[in-house]
């Protein structure tokens, strides 16, 4: 190949790798919350995308009404969604813990429908965008383009995932959480209040969605059903990484991001989801526990 072409191809490949990696990290953060709830409480939270949407709207209204930039809204929205998670657990999930799985699925699915329609009712179906956040524009490095808000979001996703992982593996409470996930009865015998641990898991799950919402709101458009766009990908990421595994979700998110962008470009954009779901099917058939799953 002539050197000019080689140069162009490497440039294109690097651009694809960077874009895919950045998008993948966002997928990771969304998926971490989902996988944590599954791992501890063993309930699939279909409303996770709706939590993400709430986080985005909270960021938007803080910006519009109180002129708080998304960067500073990050702690506020994370804490807010932490409580949304806990309230959801206390009011709803606790009642279906021992119910058949169908009831559990329907309750979180119903919650999703409720939250989306509530957003529709309260804030209309208009598309919204945070127009001038502090971090905006793009970087140009060696002819490659990197969107600054996306870079911040990716870094934020990495830090947030790291924090959750640190909390779960290195702190007393985190270990109690793990113990509950492993064996609820045995943990209870050791004096761990499983009800509290479940609530905590929902809280952290919500907080992850909240943080992802803020980071996304920095550059993504907001509308009541925006969660749906990320929900499906998040489920694939969780299944690929292994239900309940935080490092699994992290790595799988990046894999899916890269596969979507690279596959979309090298094969055909129309097939990018096809490739993602083929990987999903192969994993489900060949290694049902996922890349890092324990069971």
């Amino acid at each position: 190949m002539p050197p000019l072409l080689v140069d162009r191809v490497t440039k294109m490949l690097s651009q694809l790798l960077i874009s895919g990696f950045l998008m993948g990290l966002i997928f990771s953060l969304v998926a971490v919350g989902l996988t944590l709830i599954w791992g501890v409480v063993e309930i699939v939270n279909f409303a996770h995308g709706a939590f993400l949407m709430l986080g985005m709207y909270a960021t938007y209204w803080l910006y519009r009404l109180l002129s708080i930039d998304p960067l500073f809204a990050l702690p506020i929205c994370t804490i807010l969604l932490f409580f949304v998670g806990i309230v959801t657990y206390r009011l709803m999930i606790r009642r279906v813990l021992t119910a058949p799985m169908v009831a559990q699925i329907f309750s979180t699915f119903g919650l999703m429908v409720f939250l989306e329609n509530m957003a529709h009712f309260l804030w209309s179906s208009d598309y919204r965008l945070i127009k001038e956040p502090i971090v905006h524009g793009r970087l140009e490095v060696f002819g490659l383009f990197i969107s600054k808000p996306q870079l911040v979001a990716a870094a934020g996703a990495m830090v947030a995932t790291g924090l959750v992982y640190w909390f779960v593996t290195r702190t007393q409470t985190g270990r109690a959480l793990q113990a509950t996930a492993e064996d609820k009865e045995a943990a209870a015998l050791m004096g761990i209040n499983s009800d509290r641990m479940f609530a905590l898991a929902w809280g952290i799950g919500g907080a992850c969605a909240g943080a992802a919402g803020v980071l996304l709101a920095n550059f993504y458009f907001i509308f009541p059903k925006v969660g749906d766009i990320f929900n499906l990908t998040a489920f694939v990421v969780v299944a690929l990484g292994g239900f309940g595994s935080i490092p699994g979700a992290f790595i799988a998110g990046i894999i899916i991001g890269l596969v979507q962008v690279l596959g979309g470009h090298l094969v055909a954009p129309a097939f990018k989801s096809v490739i993602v779901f083929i990987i999903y099917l192969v994993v489900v058939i060949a290694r049902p526990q996922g890349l890092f799953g324990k069971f």
Partner: protein
Amino acid sequence: MKRFTYLAVALTLLLCLVGTSCKPATPEPAAEVVIGAIYPLSGSLAPTGELLRNGVELAVEIINGEYPDLNLPLAAEAGLPNLGGAKIRVIFGDHEASPEKGLSEAERLITEENVVALLGCYNSSVTATASEAAERLGIPFLNPESTSPKLHTRGFKWFFRTTPHDRTFAENFFDFLKDLKEQKGIDVHTLSIVYEDTLWGADVGEAEKELAAERGYEVVADIPYEHETAEVTSEVLKLKEASADAVMMASYISDAILYQKTFKDLDFNPPGILAMDSGHIDPSFLGTVGADGNYIMSREVWALDLSVKKPVVKTVNDMFVERYGKNMDGSCARSFTGMLVLADAINRAGSTDPEAIRKALLETDIPGDMLIMPWEGIKFDPETGQNTLGRGIIVQVQDEKYYTVWPFDLASKDIIWPMPTWSER
């Protein structure tokens, strides 16, 4: 009791027979000409239905009243002069966007209300069924605003359509490119075609590819994409690689926003972007992307700034605003025009006999300057009943507003081509 049932059934059957055998009444020239109009007046399309209805009502007001200053058909005299000044009365039917309702409303209006012609129905699917009733019962059906290309190719005798259809709109892009070369010296040779993968986008993509081949343009990138996807990086990088002279897009609103943001993030600078309305003219589009949406071009059926070259547009719109408190849009401008065309034909027919009206419709010849539409005029194809002089317009976003830039003789602003690159903005 049984006897009563028999009696009831027999009576019902008898009534049905009477209902179907009764030819719609065609009375002597009367003081009133009754026309049926079927629109989505309730349900999710109710706001649009209301506008369509207002368009028809304003047209009726202009026909029935005396507006000597307005250069529109039948505006100057009161009523229909050839029918002794008879006034038009419109009976509205509500189809709620349902093809079945549209059909039954058409039958009701023809057989019970004895309307002499029908107008409607906005939704292509409803127009299809309602016009079948008109065809069967031998009543002229004028469709002012449905754009499915299939409607006029059914071999119907009583069907007429004033609006251009989707195929024409796709052709307009290529007419525009030709004009661009001939009149502005801008040569576009290669095209990238991007479209969402549900029915609408796929249809548009197909039509554009076909036309590009017919007219000798080279499609260097053909990119169908998944509707409501999370990111479009690979799509945009493909576009960047292809670096065509122009990009044609068919996107719904969320995708349109996502593409526009990704174009900027990845520094994609095509000389021109031609969008197939929908997402790119949705009020949310500029509301969301703001100045980043500048220089995008989209096809449109109508725009208020046509008034710069056609003062009658402003006069009619002012009357509309005064009565209904809103500006006109492409839908009600077309229902307004449809009503005028129908009344013009009835007047020339000089009678309310359906066959006479049909003949008069076939002889319709209204010049473009007597319309509030950007069309070259109205003349129906005798085989299909399709208006052969219709065309769309192309608007361009400049300073976060849409301006008509093509046809060049109707433009309110000069076209900006190529668009400035992102670093120049």
